[in-house]
């Protein structure tokens, strides 16, 4: 923000006076943070919109476990747990003295309510599959919950950390979409629809009190408007900055810092495995070799993004770099196509959803495919159309989409899933992986799984979506990585 000269002098004089008076300045305790998408409502347990979690996750709502900035799963509202010998019974010891924002106590019955609600028959939880293996949830006493599973589940603590698994209270469920009441470090204060959401520090918070007294999420969808708002000082930080082409402006300016991290978004050239000619693995392999990932990252993402060779996040300790499996090699691609009987190439559809990685990436991929003789008819779709035509209708040859759910390699075990990969061996592997709790064995299976889908060239694996944020240089504690779609403000502070 800039002031007129007169005003600057006045404030300077005032600050000098304050210094003499002996009071060091207290650091600023409010923060305005820009987000591109506004949440449709504020109930993370009944919609898929990442924008909801970006506001409420960890700030307003908490689950039994929670994600840390590095993607690790840490204790949340449960401070410890025991697992029975057979892996079926999980006993969670809940934190004591925790209160919801409306003053009611957080107790075992709230956990029972939340999990039963999420897995109920008429549940509208977008990630209902997370709760599928739960046989029953019981409150043993006010601070102990016993969850019985139908089969051992090595992902269970991870599943409970999702925004879709946060703990809500029956007393406040009715208005959760507009007045969310959670246990988090901030309480919901106000929402001017279309404009901003304000949250305030929860003074009754059970954990470490956040440094910020209040935070405002400001919604700015237009990339150039986001740039202007940062430059004019209208917002102090922007999480998920939508204009990567302008990041160099911020890097060159000492007033700002740029945070480049990783997300859980595997961006892939999704391929309809049931539609000829893509039912032929040779054709899919040719596709993989026809693509120059770096050119796509440079051209569509202005250099931000990590190439991937399988459907797995590179920052995960179990990640295997399989990009060598699908090196850019148009000669080889043409040879493979000829082997498959398509020496003269073929024509297919390429249906693109709205994000720029898809629209810009699609143009580049179309040009690269044309080099090896594959012609694509590009159609630009809105999300709603994409969901209907491509995702549910499976009417597509190729599409580009970023799968942003964490650890979602399991979608390759669902033959009805839109890219329709049907491999019984892989499905069996996923089943054993889910039941396995020994970390070493899990790690080994995860490696095999990555290898299998890379060898089968199920989809064209492009790059891991980068998490790009811009902030005032005096702010610290913002997450660079986005292990889940969250803007966790509990550790954010101004440094002077």
């Amino acid at each position, binding site marked *: 923000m800039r002031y007129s000269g007169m005003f600057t002098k006045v404030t300077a004089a005032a600050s000098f006076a304050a210094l003499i008076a002996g009071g060091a300045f207290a650091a600023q305790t409010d923060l305005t943070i820009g987000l591109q998408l506004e949440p449709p409502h504020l109930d993370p347990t009944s919609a898929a919109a990442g924008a909801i979690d970006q506001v409420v996750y960890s700030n307003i709502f908490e689950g039994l476990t929670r994600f840390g900035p590095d993607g690790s799963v840490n204790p949340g509202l449960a401070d410890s747990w025991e697992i029975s010998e057979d892996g079926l019974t999980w006993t969670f010891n809940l934190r004591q003295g925790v209160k919801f924002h409306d003053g009611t106590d957080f107790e075992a019955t709230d956990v029972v309510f939340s999990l039963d609600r999420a897995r109920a028959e008429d549940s509208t*939880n977008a990630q*209902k599959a997370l709760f599928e293996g739960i046989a029953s949830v019981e409150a043993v006493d006010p601070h102990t919950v016993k969850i019985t599973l139908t089969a051992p589940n090595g992902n269970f603590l991870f599943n409970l950390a999702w925004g879709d698994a946060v703990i809500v209270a029956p007393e406040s469920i009715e208005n959760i979409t507009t007045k969310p009441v959670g246990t988090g470090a901030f309480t919901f204060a106000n929402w001017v629809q279309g404009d901003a959401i304000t949250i305030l520090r929860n003074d009754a918070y059970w954990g470490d009190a956040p440094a910020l007294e209040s935070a405002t999420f400001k919604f700015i969808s237009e990339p150039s*408007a986001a740039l202007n*708002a940062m430059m004019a000082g209208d917002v102090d930080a922007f999480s998920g900055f939508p204009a990567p082409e302008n990041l160099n402006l911020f890097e060159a300016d000492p007033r700002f810092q740029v945070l480049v991290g990783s997300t859980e978004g595997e961006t892939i050239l999704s391929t309809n495995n049931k539609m000829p000619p893509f039912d032929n693995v040779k054709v899919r392999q040719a596709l993989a070799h026809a693509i120059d990932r770096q050119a796509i990252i440079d051209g569509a993402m202005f250099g931000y993004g990590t190439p991937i060779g399988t459907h797995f996040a590179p920052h995960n300790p179990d990640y295997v770099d399989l990009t060598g499996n699908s090196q850019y090699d148009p000669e080889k691609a043409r040879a493979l196509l000829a082997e498959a009987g398509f020496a003269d190439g073929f024509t297919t559809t390429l249906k693109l959803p709205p994000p720029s990685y898809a629209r810009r990436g699609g143009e580049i991929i179309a040009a690269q495919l044309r080099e090896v003789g594959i012609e694509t008819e590009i159609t630009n779709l809105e*999300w709603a159309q994409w969901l*209907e035509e491509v*995702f549910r209708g499976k009417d597509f040859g190729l599409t580009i989409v970023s799968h942003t759910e964490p650890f979602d390699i399991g979608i390759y075990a669902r033959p009805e899933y*839109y890219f329709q990969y049907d491999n019984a061996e892989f499905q069996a592997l996923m089943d054993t992986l889910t039941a396995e709790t020994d970390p070493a064995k899990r790690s080994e299976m995860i490696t095999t799984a990555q290898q299998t889908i890379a060898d089968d060239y199920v989809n064209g694996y492009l790059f891991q979506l980068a998490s790009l944020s811009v902030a005032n240089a005096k702010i610290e504690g913002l997450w660079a990585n986005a292990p889940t779609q969250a803007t966790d403000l509990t550790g954010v502070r101004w440094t002077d």
Partner: protein
Amino acid sequence: MFRYILKRLQALVISLIIASLVIFAAVEVVPGDPASFMLGINAQEDTIMALREQLGLNVSLWERYFTWVTGMVQGDFGTSYTYRTPVSDMIAERMVISLPLALYALTLSTLIAFPAGIIAATRRGSVADVSVMGVTQLGVAIPNFWFAMLMVVVFAINLGWFSAGGFPGWDAGFFAAMKALTLPAIALALPQASILARVMRSSLLDTLSEDYIRTARAKGLTRRQALWRHALRNALIPVLTIIGLQFAFLLAGGIIIEKVFFLPGLGQLIFQAITQRDLIVVESVVMLLVFAVILVNFAVDLAYGIADPRLRRART
């Protein structure tokens, strides 16, 4: 005059009924399902069905049309699929920005266009006329979002006089709110003022060459008196038509300007609702806009009657 109003009212109601049918049909044939949009790419089929049931999407089209129309007549616009709040509240929240913004822009545009048009017409061929024509030509040609961005760079980023956008709400005080609307209003007003000034000029030129103006001058009125007493009033008819059209446009047509200044106005609401397949919001907002347009035209019709008494008699 009374029968004239009655006839206009009748046309108004028929237009509304036809509009409601067309809007409903157009919105419903667009592919895309609000429930699957809400639940994303990991949702199970049964969850989508459960949400459709909850949203009341599993009933026949006619049933939904009648619930919608009968609700609207009683002032109930239904509940948004995605936001889960009453549509009327959402519209009201956006109206407190869009309506003042449209009026602000219209006032600016009129304040600029009237004097400019009158000066250009009365001093035809002069330097003033040529510069008005040149500037307005530019005003029509410049894309208003580009002009808006230019203003943001100059007045918000470099000079720091204004915010780059956003709206503090009327709670922040009248002047703070009006200040936030100033740059957007100027951006919206510029092309409108240019069009209006040109219409004003040519309309006034036409009337000034009419016989009755010569008669008025002949009976001893000065140029100025003839202009104010006779020419201006007659020249107003086409100008009023344009103002009516512009107001309707400004109400929701400023969506690009709303995006540039991240103002939560009606345009943004409708845009967002379309992408999210929040059908009921789209239908209700468009219906409201149609209603506004028809109402404005009705008012303009009445204004014609006042400006030109011959119209009242001719149409009865």
